[in-house]
């Protein structure tokens, strides 16, 4: 069938093309479309019926006419050829080279949609990854095989933070056989270049595979991109035993492309025009992270989600938060105060932290210190609210102490340099400096043993 070209296009709209009277086309198959100028485009069958075939064209259907369009069915799903030669290369959303070098021909062809990992074959992620960022390591620790997105908003330094994590992330005491998969959907040239330079500066380019779709590239291609990128990541992790960190930016652009195609198809919209299957669709991407029993590698995911209008309840961050194992939330308020990285710890969370930290992983006081910092920070927020009503001078001595703590916490614990790579011990020590501003009795979340070991406050603190 792959040798036959059909000239039976009967409709074209947005990224969709309808072909009539072609029998027995497989659902999900790849398609090549040749337009009136002889240029080829790529597509995929998204509805297969006896009379009509609906094709999603990755490059869009601009400039297509129905008369002079030839469609060829390739008789195979969208695949990526995997081989160690992926490392160091740059591809587009469907796995074609965009670095001017020849395509990879030798290697196994893998269906980019993959298939669900059997939960019974998974290993629970419990190895602490040190990112060198205190708000993450100390309070929202990342573990190998976790998916921990950065919730950000336009204008905030999520890319800088993601790049810092990529540069610094490692397992304490292990040099590591790592790789980075960078999946960029609808990013600006400047952002793409920023990441490329960051990888080059830290000398890791040879361990990076990049999949890039720029802001002016066809949106439909963004739907394939994360699947292609994760096929590469899974290969590197589970065939080549690498610890793979996948940075995906920006999942909001991905979701918007999904909405665009869904609307064109006439799918029933759920919230804000996004299709009802946005949750399932995002899950298919995010759930490809993890660890698998008896495999040495891992896929750890740090997706970037920019919250439209800074709204965390918008369907994209909302559904992401329901799937991922926590989130790191950036705050415009902190950023405006000059704090980098502007991580708002209150809504930030790492669900897998509990099993990756403590005595044998980081330090025995770590879980309780994190808990204590959170409790104090929550009280400090109340004090801040109160101060904004009655003025800081009117606060009780107890509340003033909270207020001072919050200021110091934002400055010294949250705030750190873009190149400052703190060890987890340094992070915990900074935490204890802050805790020691309080009298012992105010620290009810840490244990007596912790206090005996690490508490530095004297009587004057009371």
């Amino acid at each position: 069938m792959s040798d036959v070209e059909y000239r039976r296009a009967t409709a074209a709209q947005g990224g969709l093309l309808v072909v009539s009277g072609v029998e027995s086309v497989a659902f999900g198959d790849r398609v090549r479309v040749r337009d009136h100028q002889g240029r080829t485009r790529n597509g995929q069958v998204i509805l297969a019926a006896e009379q009509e075939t609906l094709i999603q064209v990755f490059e869009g259907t601009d400039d297509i006419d129905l008369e002079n369009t030839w469609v060829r069915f390739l008789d195979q799903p969208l695949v990526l050829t995997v081989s160690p030669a992926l490392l160091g290369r740059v591809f587009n959303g469907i796995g074609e080279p965009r670095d001017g070098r020849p395509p990879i021909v030798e290697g196994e062809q893998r269906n980019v949609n993959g298939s669900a990992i059997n939960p019974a074959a998974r290993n629970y992620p419990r190895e602490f990854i040190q990112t060198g960022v205190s708000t993450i390591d100390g309070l929202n620790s990342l573990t190998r095989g976790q998916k921990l997105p950065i919730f950000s908003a336009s204008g905030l330094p999520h890319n800088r933070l993601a790049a810092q994590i990529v540069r610094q992330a490692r397992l304490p005491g292990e040099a590591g056989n790592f790789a980075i998969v960078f999946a960029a959907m609808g990013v600006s040239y400047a952002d793409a270049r920023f990441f490329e330079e960051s990888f080059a500066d830290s000398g890791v380019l040879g361990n990076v595979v990049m999949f890039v779709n720029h802001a002016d590239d066809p949106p439909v291609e963004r739907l394939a991109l994360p699947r292609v990128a994760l096929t590469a990541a899974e290969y590197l992790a589970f065939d080549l035993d690498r610890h793979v960190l996948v940075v995906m930016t920006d999942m909001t652009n991905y979701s918007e492309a999904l909405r665009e195609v869904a609307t064109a198809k006439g799918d029933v919209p759920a919230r804000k025009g996004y299709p009802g299957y946005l949750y399932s669709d995002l899950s298919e991407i995010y759930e490809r992270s993890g660890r698998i029993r008896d495999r040495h590698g891992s896929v750890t995911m740090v997706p970037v989600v920019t919250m439209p209008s800074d709204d965390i309840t918008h369907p994209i961050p909302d559904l992401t938060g329901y799937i991922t194992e926590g989130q790191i939330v950036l705050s415009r308020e902190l950023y405006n105060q000059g704090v980098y990285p502007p991580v708002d710890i209150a809504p930030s969370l790492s669900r897998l932290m509990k099993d990756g930290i403590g005595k044998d992983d980081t330090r025995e006081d770590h879980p309780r210190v994190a808990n204590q910092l959170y409790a104090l920070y929550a009280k400090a927020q109340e004090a801040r609210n109160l101060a904004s009503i009655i003025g800081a001078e009117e606060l009780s001595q107890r509340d003033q102490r909270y207020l001072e703590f919050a200021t110091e916490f934002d400055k010294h614990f949250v705030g750190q340099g873009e190149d400052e790579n703190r060890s987890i011990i340094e992070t915990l020590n900074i935490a204890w400096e802050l805790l020691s501003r309080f009298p012992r009795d105010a620290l009810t979340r840490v244990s007596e043993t912790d206090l005996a070991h690490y508490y530095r406050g004297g009587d004057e603190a009371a």
Partner: protein
Amino acid sequence: MSEARVGRIIEINGPILRINLAGARNGEQVRIGSLDIVGEIIALEGDIAIVQAYESTEGLRPGETVNGLGRPLTVELGPGLLQGIFDGMQRPLTEIARVAGDNIPRGLAIDSLDRKREWTFLPCDGLEPGDTIGVGELLGTVQETETIEHRIMVPPNVQGELIDLAHVGEYTLEDTIAQIRDKNDQVHKLKLYHRWPVRIPRPYSRRDHGVEPLITGQRILDTFFPLLKGGKGAVPGPFGAGKTMVQQQVARWSNADIVIYVGCGERGNEMVDVLESFPQLQDPNTGRGMMERTLLVANTSNMPVVAREASVYVGMTIAEYFRDQGHDVVMLADSTSRWAEALREVAGRLGHMPVEEGYPAYLGSRLAAVYERAGRVQTLAGERGSVTLIGAVSPPGGDFSEPVTSHTKEIIQTFWALSKELADARHYPSVDWVDSFSQDVSIAAGWWAENINGHWDKRREEALGLLARDAELSRIVNLVGPEALSHEQQWELEGAALIKEAVLQQSALDDVDSYCSPRKQFELLELVMQVFDRGKKLIELGAPVQELAEHPLMARIRRAKSTWRSDETDDLAEFATEVYETLAALHSEYASSQEAAS
């Protein structure tokens, strides 16, 4: 049932197919195409049957064959269910991993229950050939795990004269253990297992009222918003509020006989967490490993969406099966929102008119039908059994007015509302005491009075009253500052803070505090309320609020929950006595100084 018939595919639209199949029946199972994908007929339109596929349809072509199996989706019910992990169609995932590797392949035909394993069957005493056997009657038992006796019953659709019953011995699932001749002279060969269609509730002889609370070992749940055995509860909460932790804590510690955990459209790693951690945990009631009484149904979010819809029915049917054996079963469904979304997705592809947020008009009735399968019943064999259903709800944006949450709220008796604000402040479990409710407090009060303490009801109300006052006073503070409050009111704020920290907050990660027995729950509440009452009198005598609030005793009271285990309530009582004595000493101090002043 009709024989297998062959039809063909007309159209493939994601998980929904249109097929041509003679004699197709709604609800019938089909096998699709060369990949042998599993599907179910969900609608008929003239010659066309609409099929929802439980597996990915990628690669299928119009014109491929479809086999009608002539029977609906059923589950296998028999020994070997416990400690297992199944997918949304009850396929055993551990076995799949063994035969097929790390990922789940399509079209895999595999038995739900192990056919090779032998079980020791112990027939009932006194049953003789010639006896008349009714539906659901007990034939014998199999000790499935150390703690769980699996009762082998006559299926609910068979009755008649017992012709033959197996002797004590080792049998596989396919061995015949009894033969029964029904009134039509048809002989039924009964095995250790039978099948039951998942969408048909299993019969029972009558419904009973709930009589005792399910004890979960979680203070905010048991003491403040009790759920009865056989009750219906919901845990709604935005992401990150701790729904899964609440569900897992209930699965771990509740005093049920059987726990069925349905991971419906949730994370793969959470299922692994249960699989890896439960065998290490000890049941506080039996001392045995927790996994022995647990089984998992896992349709993670990346698995096909249609099987997600089925997974809840699969879990429920298994729950009813254990109920019919006279067990108290807890079924946790995490999350019913994902189940509803699966319903919505299929409805959308079928072109059903959306009403709210894209959900079809029948969302409410479908939800109610699922929840109504919970309850405490008298079984066909005359025993008592119950299914308690606790559904997590994941409202978009944390908005409780959305369709799934609001419909659920109308159906359930106990509502454990999780709050983002509490979770952000790391107040766990983040069950909001304002939004949550339980309609069964009075029944629970009877149990507490009989088994723990007659003051439970009163103390509970006082504590909730104080928390309500706290919310009110906090609003004033936020408007005009704390100076506007009287000393008594300031002490009320301190009292509420003490309830929150010493009673309501409970760490699932703390070995001592993760489970709290009813006795310890009451002792802690009593201690805190006593301290509040006695403190109030001290304030009236002129003791400064600040001094009381920062008294070193307070830090110890806050730590009491994680200082003494559930079996160390004597030590806790001793500590309480020490606290009361200290406060009494303070009292006489202030009383005498006040006297001196006057």
